């Protein structure tokens, strides 16, 4: 059970605050989250058991019943009886107390409720900030615009906690002003504009770190033109959606792994098309670590090449991010998995991830070792992101009618090749691009469905070795470039962490 308690002091007499709050059907006149309110039947607004119907600014509907009200105690309690937002067994209490020393009002707003598993924090935050704190601010500004302040002054909560779609949402991001090393990454203040048509605005909760981010930062890839914000993968909560966005709604947990860059931020407005809802049983950090690499593994094993039982699959860098997932997944598909790596330590990792054999550099070439392991058959499919150094060995290690999937070039460009020589084995070569397999909502939905299912069934496991505050993204890059990391690295926005304490 989740418990939320928020309280504030309003610089107005208790009678003035109570006059606003006691109208159980009046939230649409002051609360920014409530667009419309009406009562069931012909009950009065202060009649116990009255039910109010809220249509929220973000479109959801909910019904709440008045359980008790006391003019003596300046308090009332209510329960949610029906809601589009999954708040279960929700009972809340609004209570005012007179501050006799200063003629102002102490206002507490508390509740207890249940949520679907894994959504406790997110929904507690929604209730605390989007409903209670936003309500405090609305009543405060309503009362204090018509009053001169009395002698006390109290700090008020940041206006950015309001969930109003019409205003910019402020947050922080990690930006670079020019290409270079990790030292070029600086924390900057950003605002996320209200979402336009087809857009979504997110409060991000976990951000995946990928090697491509290093390339964007250094300028090796031209995906990020400074000044700008790196990052291609994150998870968060929908704050609001623009016109025409049907598949997302405020409060929903979502994630994405797609260009354009800009994921290293606590708030972000972006195209909603490639943003997908997350299932309740996949937590934020896992999803942020899994999306980009897992989606790549999904289309490599199921779409670029459909790996079948008994296929011989050769995976380069089997201890790396995508490599591990390829080994695990190919193994569970019944393939015979061979990893090709550089040292015994990584070989151990590869075997643990499901590689049946591991090839290390030695006296004999890679193709000779593959042919020996496969008794002269060769590899039916090779997943090769090494590029220049591996290409010719890969072709030589293929089986007849084998398929070389070249999905990266860590060692450099492959350069020009004569394709007529490929006829000796009827070789097929693919050069897939992540973007082309993930460029429509339908493709992303299908890929992530199978990915989440694989995580759920423990076909693949996502190891998050490092978590850093977003403000320390430079440290995450340093560790990644120094190869000091294990598994995936995830950044957690600092203000999100603070909000969870």
């Amino acid at each position, binding site marked *: 059970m989740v418990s939320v308690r928020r*309280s*504030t*002091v309003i610089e107005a007499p208790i009678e003035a605050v109570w006059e606003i709050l006691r109208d159980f059907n009046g939230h649409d006149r002051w609360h920014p989250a409530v667009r419309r309110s009406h009562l069931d039947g012909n009950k009065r607004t202060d009649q116990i058991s009255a039910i109010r119907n809220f249509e929220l600014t973000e479109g959801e509907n909910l019904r709440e019943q008045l359980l008790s009200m006391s003019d003596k105690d300046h308090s009332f309690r209510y329960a949610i009886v029906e809601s589009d937002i999954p708040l279960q067994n929700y009972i809340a209490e609004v209570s005012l*107390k007179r*501050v*006799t*020393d*200063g003629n102002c009002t*102490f206002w507490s707003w508390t509740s207890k409720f249940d949520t679907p598993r894994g959504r406790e924090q997110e929904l507690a935050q929604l209730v605390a900030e989007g409903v209670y704190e936003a309500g405090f601010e609305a009543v405060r500004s309503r009362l204090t615009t018509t009053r001169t302040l009395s002698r006390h002054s*109290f700090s008020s909560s940041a206006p950015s906690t309001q969930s109003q779609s019409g205003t910019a949402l402020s947050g922080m991001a990690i930006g670079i002003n020019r290409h270079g090393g990790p030292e070029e990454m600086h924390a900057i203040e950003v605002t996320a504009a209200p979402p336009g048509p087809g857009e979504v605005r997110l409060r991000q909760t976990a951000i995946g770190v990928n090697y491509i981010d290093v390339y964007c930062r250094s300028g090796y890839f031209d995906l990020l033109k400074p000044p700008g914000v790196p990052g291609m993968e994150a998870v968060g909560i929908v704050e609001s959606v623009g016109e025409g966005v049907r598949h997302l709604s405020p409060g929903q947990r979502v994630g994405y792994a797609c260009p354009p860059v800009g994921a290293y931020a606590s708030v972000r407005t972006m195209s909603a098309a490639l943003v997908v809802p997350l299932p309740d049983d996949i937590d934020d950090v896992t999803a942020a670590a899994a999306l980009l690499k897992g989606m790549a593994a999904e289309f490599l094993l199921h779409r670029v090449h459909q790996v079948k039982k008994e296929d011989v699959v050769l995976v380069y860098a089997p201890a790396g991010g995508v490599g591990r997932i390829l080994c695990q997944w190919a193994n569970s598909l019944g393939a015979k998995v061979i990893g090709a790596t550089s040292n015994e330590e990584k070989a151990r990792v590869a075997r643990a991830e499901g590689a049946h054999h591991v090839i290390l550099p030695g006296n004999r070439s890679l193709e000779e070792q593959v042919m020996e392991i496969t008794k002269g058959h060769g590899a039916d499919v090779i997943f090769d992101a090494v590029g220049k150094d591996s290409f010719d060995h890969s072709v030589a290690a293929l089986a007849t009618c084998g398929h070389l999937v070249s999905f990266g070039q860590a060692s450099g460009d492959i350069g020009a090749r004569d394709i007529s020589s490929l006829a000796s084995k009827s070789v097929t070569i693919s050069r897939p691009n992540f973007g082309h397999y993930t460029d429509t909502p339908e493709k992303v939905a299908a890929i992530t469905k199978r990915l989440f299912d694989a995580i759920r069934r423990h076909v693949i496991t996502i190891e998050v070795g490092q978590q850093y505050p977003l403000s320390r993204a430079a440290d995450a890059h340093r560790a990644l470039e120094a190869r000091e990391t294990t598994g995936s690295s995830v950044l957690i926005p600092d203000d999100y962490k603070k909000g969870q304490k």
Partner: protein
Amino acid sequence: MPSVYTSTVIAAQADRVWSVIRDFNALPDWTEFVVDSRIEEGLPSDKIGCVRAFRLENGGFIREKLLALSDYDYSFSYSILESPMGVENYVATVKLFPITDGGHTFAEWSAEFDCAPDREQELIDHISTNVFLGGLTSLKSQMGG
């Protein structure tokens, strides 16, 4: 039944304020009108039912019994067993509420009692101003604001 209610905002975290006032024997530490206090029978000051006996600056002697103490609610209640005020069935409660917006504390001190009808207003004024507001004001300055 006459009642008194006094409240204020203290510029300190509720945890800190509570650590000062939770000790039923600590009135001399945070009020200006209590000169010495002891718990009868050598009981711990957080034992429900213990009695504090204290003397006021003006010489008055008071005995009060701890009826309730809650670390969870930051509150305690007590009754007066003996006092020069001329009140009966006097039960008072002190309670703190954290103000999540800003980190300060809302503090309230309330009481209900019986007394001779012609002394009612005089006692309400005395308790609310001299005792409760006086106590809360010195608590505020004790907490640094």
